[in-house]
């Protein structure tokens, strides 16, 4: 069934680009252009997936494309990539934000340009791999590959307290993935013991049978790794520090993609592997998600640093996404997956805007802002727009996701969903405070600063269009997600069932 390995190309193109970027040490501009070209090519390749006729003939279930190669045969590791609707829109987001991450670093990153792009692009390969890998060992490799470059991005190109932030990030991530690795190997051995087959293929491992305590322990180990990445309270504290100190591109990738890999892995790996444990522990996830939504939304109100504020708002939004996952019906899952894209767009845009502001004013403190509408109206217009999208204004993207999650939750757990609706109030309170203290009011002895440049508009306008597209006409996207979720009513296992 293997024709041209298009998925493999999409995954490894950025890595090749990364070495290319490393090669052009001398010429910064060439390095930037090369990276941009690579990401745009990748984006075009992903778009071409939409046009390609899906290889449905010999692929069961909801898969659009599967590429399967033998790799480390003795260990049972295969190189399996598979694409369904959920992966498709997530890799579209990945390549799009990847290109944007290169663009936002154009002026911001001036030191060690070529290693910066090396790390940035190799991270893209990691993220793309996570969204496509169907072999759990391969998944683990990609999972690590996406984390390590971020360590350097924050540690080398970050702001003030970057070493503390990046070490914290690394410690959290590594502890999570170590636990996951142990569980992964345990699962592999258990399966080998039961069936006599050495494999890491997700759909084979799904047939392992467990006693309840064993399943719970395995599930908890995977969930810990994923919860740290999402991040779910109480293991979220690395995120505000990492965001605050990261360069803009780092924040974009972090908020837009890395957090999504946590949710995606929960959806694709953890729940299908351990469906019974997932069912048992879903109330816990639900409560953690809901609590996190209020907790982080509340803390966001007290923040002084704009980036830290948006970081906490991210935790709050991710909480709602986890709620949708924990409830697990077609409506909430569609909402959660759509909300991953929505959040990826709006929060990235907010971080980008804050980065642009930081380049001009060298401050992100709310107490030093105010009256920006008068000083830089265009920037302010975009900031207002994306804040409104983020607070769930109908007609813009986040609204659709929120409605689907909350209404879907309501049909099963009306009490908790009603509380969840109240979260909309928490969001609006910190968002409006942020707007009031940054945009409105008097601008006191502010130096003259330039409004958005053409390059910056090129970055923001596609994001803007994305917000409108997903807010006004989410039908096609929801169709793609819905097709992938089609088998879900029967059993969650189908979601990960490859041939």
């Amino acid at each position: 069934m293997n024709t041209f390995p298009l998925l493999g190309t999409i995954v490894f193109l950025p890595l090749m680009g990364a070495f290319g970027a490393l090669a052009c040490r001398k010429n910064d501009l060439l390095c930037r252009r090369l990276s941009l070209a690579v990401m745009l090519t990748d984006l075009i390749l992903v778009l071409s997936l939409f046009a390609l006729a899906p290889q449905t003939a010999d692929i069961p279930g909801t898969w659009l494309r599967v590429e399967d190669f033998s790799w480390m045969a003795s260990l049972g590791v295969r190189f399996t990539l598979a694409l369904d609707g959920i992966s498709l829109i997530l890799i579209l987001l990945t390549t799009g934000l990847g290109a944007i991450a290169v663009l936002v670093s154009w002026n911001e990153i001036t030191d060690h340009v070529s290693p910066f792009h090396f790390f940035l692009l190799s991270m893209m390969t990691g993220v793309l791999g996570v969204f496509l890998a169907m072999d759990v060992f391969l998944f683990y490799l990609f999972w690590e590959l996406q984390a390590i470059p971020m360590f350097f991005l924050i540690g080398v190109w970050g702001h003030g307290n970057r070493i503390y932030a990046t070490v914290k990030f690394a410690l959290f991530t590594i502890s999570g993935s170590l636990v996951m690795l142990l569980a992964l190997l345990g699962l592999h051995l258990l399966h080998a013991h039961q069936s006599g087959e050495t494999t890491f293929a997700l759909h084979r491992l799904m047939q392992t049978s467990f006693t309840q305590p064993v399943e719970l322990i395995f599930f908890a180990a995977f969930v810990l790794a994923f919860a740290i990445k999402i991040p779910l309270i109480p293991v979220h504290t690395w995120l505000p520090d990492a965001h605050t100190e990261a360069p803009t591109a780092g924040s974009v990738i972090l908020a837009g993609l890395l957090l999504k890999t946590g949710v995606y892995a929960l959806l694709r790996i953890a729940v299908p592997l351990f469906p019974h444990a997932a069912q048992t522990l879903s109330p816990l996830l639900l409560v953690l998600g809901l609590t996190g939504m209020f907790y982080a939304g509340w803390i966001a109100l007290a923040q002084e640093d704009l980036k830290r504020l948006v970081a906490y708002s991210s935790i709050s939004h991710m909480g709602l996404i986890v709620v949708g996952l924990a409830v697990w019906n077609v409506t909430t899952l569609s909402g959660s997956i759509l909300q991953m894209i929505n959040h990826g767009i709006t929060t990235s845009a907010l971080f980008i805007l804050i980065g642009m502001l930081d380049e001009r004013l060298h401050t992100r403190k709310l107490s030093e802002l105010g009256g920006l509408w008068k000083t830089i109206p265009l920037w302010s217009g975009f900031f207002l727009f994306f804040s409104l999208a983020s607070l769930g204004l109908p007609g813009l993207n986040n609204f659709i996701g929120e409605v689907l999650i909350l209404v879907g939750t309501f049909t099963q757990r009306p009490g908790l969903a009603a509380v969840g609706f109240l979260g909309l109030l928490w969001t609006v309170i910190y968002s409006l405070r942020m707007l009031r203290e940054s945009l409105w009011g008097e601008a006191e002895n502010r130096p003259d600063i330039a409004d958005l440049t053409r390059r910056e508009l090129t970055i923001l306008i596609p994001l803007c269009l994305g917000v409108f597209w997903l807010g006004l006409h989410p039908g096609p996207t929801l169709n793609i997600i819905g097709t992938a979720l089609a088998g879900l009513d029967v059993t969650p296992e189908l979601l990960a069932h490859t041939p």
Partner: protein
Amino acid sequence: MKPVLFLLLSFPLLGAVISALVGRYLSRRAVETIACTSVASAFVLALTAFFLSGQTVHSLTLARWFAAGSFQVNLDIYYDPLAAIMALMVTFVSSLVHLYSVGYMRHENDYTRYFCFLNLFVFAMLVIVMAGNLVFLYLGWETVGLCSYALIGFWYEKPEAAHAGTKAFIVTRLGDVAFGIAIALCWTALGQLSVTGIHEGASGLGATMAGIIGFFLLLAAIGKSAQIPLAVWLPDAMAGPTPVSALIHAATMVTAGVYLLMRFFPIIRGSAFLMVVIAVIGVITVCFGAVAALVQQDIKRILAYSTISQVGYMFLALGAGDVAGSMFHLISHAFFKSLLFLGAGCIIQALHEEQNIFRMGGLRHSMPHLFWLFLAGTAALGALPVTAGFFSKDRILLAVFLQPNLFYMLLWSVSVLAAAITPLYAFRLFFVVFYGDSHADTQPTSPAPIPPWMIRVLWPLAVLSVAAGLLNLPVNWFGNEWLVHYLAAVPGAAMELHASHRIETAMQLGSAVITIIMGGIAWIYFGGRTQPEDIFPEIFQTKWRPLFQNGFYLDRFYQSWIIAPYRAMARFLWHRVDTGWVDTGLNQGARFFLNLAEMLRLWTTGRISQYVSMTFTGFALILCSLILAWWVLPI
């Protein structure tokens, strides 16, 4: 019909989009023309739709919006007489306010932003009016909130304006949360989100379920319509430009809550208890607003509290089951209140942004046209006989009076008391501003010139304030109650009051006498006054006046019992819980491993002799354990 309704919605939206995208490249005149034309066209289209459709109900889908599983939402239109009459009113008042704004905002440089949001507001309001399902309605509902936020805070450099906008958004958002829950409830209980579906399903709901859904709809309405206990945002909303106050915070948006309850009245009336709750909230708000309006000194705040009070009457009417009466008052209120606000705008500009009525006076000489216009508005607000306000308020009082439940009799007597206060504060405002002498110290000898068309556009409103009673002229005035018959197609709307002519006439006579007497009292106290002080007894001045003037300290209550604790909690969660317990706890965990590593590091001393001895020790240990294992374990 579909193209007409589609265009009716599109024109204002198109105006807003053009202003937003290319407004900065257009001349001022072009922006103004686009804004006014788009809304005026909407009015023409609303008129066309009104005449084309008659009393038929149109339910159609413009486009698909989103769907997941069985949950599907489209951009549906539901156009019935209720929507028709409301759309007509909204577009008519909006057109006049747009024309007026061209004059009022003539010195303002940021006119593009102003007209963009004003156009967007008209679009969103029309969505509320014509939406065919709850989610689409919610889109309009939130968007009017956004426009209100943006326009209250239009002069964003003033901290109080930015603050008032934020406050309005947050308080109304509290209602929106309830709206969201109502959507989820309807979906869960009825499997329906469309207006028609809800109307059909409403009868099958039990009283409890209808009461619960209705309760959340009511909460949403209370937020938007600034009723007790969420009335606090409206007086502050006066920080916005005066035409905005006229359109959004008097004539249209604040009545959206009432309209929501009318739209889903089949659910509301399913629960008799809920009806009583609505009526009680209405009556409390009526009194609250009237008493607070009586002692304000800022002309816009008087009108704002008056709006709160008048919208309370509409709630009261709904609580008495009289949808048509509520709609009648909604329309007549829209005319006279926008007239009063726009008139106040003229006064404020003529007196160089003065808003305190006790620094005005004698304006009947310097602004004679405005005098007559304002008189028409004041008479309608005070419900003087034969004005629109007289008929519409009387119908509400009659409907409450005719309720069989004795409790309604109590509500009726309280609302009659409040109705007596209304002409008092209305004429207090009027006499203080237009009679007496002008204050030479604070007031320029001749008012600043204002464009004559700002006065001219008020004439239609003045005529309607006086004559809109014809819409629903009672039978004993030889009318045929047109509005009641027109709304017959709306479920639960048309209520024949079945009052005997004797009662009706007696009631009208009674209220006519009361209003005239109260107007007279206002004349005695405020008619010829030159002193810029209120005349009230001493005890009132010291004890009650501050209470009324501050809106019963509702604001202060929220400030100290909700806002301050909320802020404190935010800081507590951040400093104590998040960076305190959680983060410190996790850091401690990390430090534990660090200390472990430090201990291990002590072994690396660098002395060869120690390493050699340690190697041998280790080797010996391994050997021992191997031997032991060989002996003990059966390998």
